[in-house]
């Protein structure tokens, strides 16, 4: 079911009942300033031209659309095409958004940028653009995540960022986001907060989606060119939901294309150790927006689990909540084990080491492909490369370097 008349969020940042601006009064003025600056930048041809220039020359866009022929043949069904965001500079889709927001920060005269990070990918991307544009950079990261992602912590430091450990709450991504918000509210006059996904208060979910939509726009053109038609389904992993929104959004009005978001089922939905907010959560309010959340019966936010730190988040962008409720997108989940299997398969059969986050989307494609005809087409967003994950994978296989 395509949605031809799609024009969300509304002026107050709502996608139906989701989204909005659920923040303390102390942040309202900063969000108003950001909303105005972003609206002005969108109308400014020079801003858009500079964004596109940076995507082309610094990130290396357009990212290729690649037909995974060997893997498709082994699966024995639909043809799987990969949108290669793993080939971007810094190795994931995160940089698209960071460039957009950093250019906006510069336009607003803010010389200091801050970010939250879980896996470290968004932190690395933010540190990268801060170095590129000569900005001071502070990245908040849960102390538990710093332990799990030590290589990315070092990468951020190499790039000149200060990484601040967050010891509150569950010491993971959600707590890093809380801490970044606290920094922003305190240093709002000279600081720009670069949120890494389509969550947070309006205008972030819209703005991050807009910057990431380059993925879907390119894919539509590339599918047409390479296949003469659009895919039967677009599949992407969903943590906060930015790579998925980026590829889904241009497809919302396109008929005949299923949109499938894949969440982390961790050790299984029944185990309580997962991060599948859309599949197993309930609507609530966190981090400035109303959306599906993993929470207990008293409204306290649950601790989550996924083998991929980038999917380990108890919420999800509000636009996904809306797309789920109205039925335009479907949301499924894939366990740690299934994601690992897809990780290994892509390594062996295509010579591509995928991120564990992206491996969730690959795993779902692998389960769907054999049920479809050989001329069916699945488009998978390969959101990042898996070099950062080799320690996690090795540990799972009982290997230590």
């Amino acid at each position, binding site marked *: 079911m395509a949605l031809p008349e799609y024009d969300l969020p509304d002026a107050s940042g709502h996608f139906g009942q989701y989204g*909005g601006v*659920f923040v*303390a009064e102390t942040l309202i003025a900063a969000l108003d300033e950001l909303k105005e600056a972003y609206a002005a930048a969108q109308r400014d041809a020079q801003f858009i031209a500079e964004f596109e220039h940076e995507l082309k020359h610094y990130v290396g866009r357009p990212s290729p659309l690649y037909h995974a022929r060997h893997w498709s043949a082994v699966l024995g069904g639909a043809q799987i095409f990969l949108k290669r965001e793993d080939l971007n500079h810094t190795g994931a889709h995160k940089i698209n958004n960071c460039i957009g927001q950093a250019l906006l920060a510069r336009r607003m005269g803010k010389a200091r940028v801050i970010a939250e990070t879980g896996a470290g990918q968004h932190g690395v991307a933010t540190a990268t653009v801060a170095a590129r544009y000569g900005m001071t950079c502070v990245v908040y990261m849960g102390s538990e995540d710093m332990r799990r992602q030590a290589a990315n912590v070092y990468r951020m430091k190499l790039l000149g960022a200060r990484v601040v450990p967050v010891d509150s709450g569950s010491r993971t991504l959600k707590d890093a986001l809380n801490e970044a918000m606290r920094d922003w509210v305190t240093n709002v006059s000279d600081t720009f907060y670069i949120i890494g996904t389509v969550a947070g208060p309006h205008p972030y979910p819209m703005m991050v989606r807009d910057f990431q939509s380059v993925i879907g726009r390119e894919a539509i053109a590339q599918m047409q060119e390479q296949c003469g038609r659009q895919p039967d389904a677009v599949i992407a992993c969903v943590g906060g939901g930015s790579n998925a929104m980026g590829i889904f959004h241009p497809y919302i009005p396109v008929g005949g294309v299923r949109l499938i978001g894949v969440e982390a089922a961790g050790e299984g939905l029944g185990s309580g150790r997962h991060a599948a907010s859309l599949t197993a959560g*309930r609507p*609530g309010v966190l981090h400035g927006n109303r959306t599906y959340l993993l929470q207990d019966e008293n*409204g*306290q936010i649950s601790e989550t689990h996924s083998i991929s730190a980038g999917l380990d988040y108890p919420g999800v962008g509000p636009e996904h909540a809306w797309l789920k409720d109205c039925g335009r997108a479907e949301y499924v989940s894939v366990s740690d084990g299934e994601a690992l299997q897809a990780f290994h398969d892509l390594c062996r059969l295509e010579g591509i080491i995928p991120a564990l986050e992206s491996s969730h989307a690959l795993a779902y494609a692998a389960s769907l492909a054999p049920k479809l005809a050989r001329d069916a087409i699945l488009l998978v967003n390969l959101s990042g490369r898996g070099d950062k994950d080799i320690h996690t994978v090795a540990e799972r296989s009982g290997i230590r370097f």
Partner: protein
Amino acid sequence: MTRIAGLFGKLRAQQRKALIPFITAGDPDPALTVPLMHALVQAGADIIELGVPFSDPMADGPIIQRASERALANGVSLRQVLALVASFRHDDRETPVVLMGYANPVEAMGLDEFAAAAAAAGVDGVLVVDYPPEESRAFVSVLRAHSLDPIFLLAPTSSEERIAQVGTLASGYIYYVSLKGVTGSAALDVAAVAARIPGIRARTGVPVGVGFGIRDAATAAAVAEVADAVVVGSRIIEEIEHSARETVCDRVAVLLAELRCGVDSVTAGGKGAKWAG
């Protein structure tokens, strides 16, 4: 008339200012919350702000975050907070109690059910930190239906337009956050606060309390000079954090008495009288 409006009417007649301590329900122990509330009242509290613990207190600094974590470790839920208020009301039918917390526990309970239960427990006002006016129309009407006062925040960055908007929704009092930052931040610019209060009071017609950065009798006195109420949170939580269970009520009472002296030193009875501390 609500208990909060009655209180401010009485204080105005006496030319006194309100002192509003904040504690987190269930910190350090649910069994100590009601005794702490009574101790605060005896030492001079006019209203008690009772924090509802939440897993993700985005607008709070480390001191109140830790209080929230201790309360959650004790398993304190919103329903239990309401039970604590009901228990406090058993012995104190005078002192207004304002709940302060975040939206999600309230939404998880359901707005209607929450408001009915809060009113039945003897709550007087509710401040949901992450419900700014534009997201709280439904909530405000539910609170009003149960005669609960919706308390709102205003900040140094709030525009004239927003102040007017809050004026159409707020009753009880308005909580003016005196500085940029989270709870527990240090610096307080009294002159800047003084410049904003009369305008807010005039535009909203509601008493204005000031909080964030008030740590001792001197800062309490300075704020009492310009505001209708003085709100103290992190300093009290710090005292709770550093006290043994047996002495926590006494130590908090001593601190509150000092703050009371500060507040009263600038108002009618004590005008000009120096705070002796």
